[in-house]
């Protein structure tokens, strides 16, 4: 689904005075599409309208839908790429790029993640090839002499 379609659908739903059962189903599906998380029903009857507002605010703020992330953090974990940085990441804003960078810098912190894709630990064929082609320092020194 494109972001334009999501906005259009959200505006339609926002215009409904009373949400029908099918509208509610649409909200649940959109919630997964836009925010990449499952919709949780609560006892509060406004939870569907709240979800619509939450999705609209997210799209308004980031001008896109949340990127699907292949990594997930355990609940109670917050990542900061630099110590004391105002920039921090939870599952709400985690991206593959951020997770990869963090795990590269802090390989011992893998236990903070609940989901790490299998290919994260697979050796990168390009890097491996580059390592094979790159001449060793000894060879370079010998050539200079």
């Amino acid at each position, binding site marked *: 689904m494109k972001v334009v379609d999501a906005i259009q659908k959200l505006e339609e739903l926002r215009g409904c005075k009373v949400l029908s059962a099918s509208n509610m189903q649409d909200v649940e599906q959109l919630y997964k599409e836009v925010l990449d998380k499952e919709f949780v029903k609560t006892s509060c009857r406004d939870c569907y309208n709240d979800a619509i507002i939450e999705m609209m605010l997210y799209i308004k703020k980031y001008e896109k839908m949340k990127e699907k992330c292949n990594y997930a*953090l355990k609940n*109670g974990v917050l990542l900061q790429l630099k110590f004391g940085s105002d920039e921090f990441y939870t599952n709400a804003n985690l991206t593959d790029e951020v997770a990869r960078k963090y795990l590269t810098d802090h390989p011992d912190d893998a236990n903070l993640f609940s989901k790490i894709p299998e290919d994260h630990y697979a050796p990168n064929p390009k890097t491996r090839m580059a390592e094979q082609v790159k001449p060793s320092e000894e060879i370079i020194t010998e050539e200079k002499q």
Partner: protein
Amino acid sequence: MALCDDLIKRDVVPSCSDPVIEGLEQEGVIMNRADVDFAATVFNTTRKNVVETLALKKGKKGFKVVVPGKTPFTGTATTMAAGTYRNTFTNTVSIVILANDPDVCQDVIDGLANGTYVLVLENKYKGMQRETTPGDAAFQIYGFYQGCTATAIENNKYSEDTVGGWMVTLEEAKSPKSAVFLFKTSYEATKALVGTLTSPAL
């Protein structure tokens, strides 16, 4: 084995610029103690009563506990308990559940009666004016060492306080520390961290 230095390390004076205030905020988090991933829990490297990461096990989440009113969680306190060789602390947390229906009784009250829990509550006093680490006094963990278990649960049909709901008292006895705080570099970051405790688990 290192010796514990049971010494005070600073002046015992009130803060004039950031005076302590009583009370707790209305919203906290309760977790099954078995769901806490202690292996992934991170303490501050120098301040050993500050937890920086309170992770839950994969697929597990905590639950919000909201107590309305001007004095939520009334009865929550920490007291010293004298021991033969070492004194410890007893934490008491009081929760009012303004509901009484089959779901609440089955999913909450029956569980509270026999389970062991860890709670995170937010103090009204947050220490935001502190020169270093402002906001580090905001969130406090109860039940980290021994877990909180129920010592009293009551449903008084004519209670004016609980208006027919439930009053639950949880207690953690023999905690070796007077308090354990949850703090990750700033108040905002810690607030976000606490928010993740109750998010749907991925």
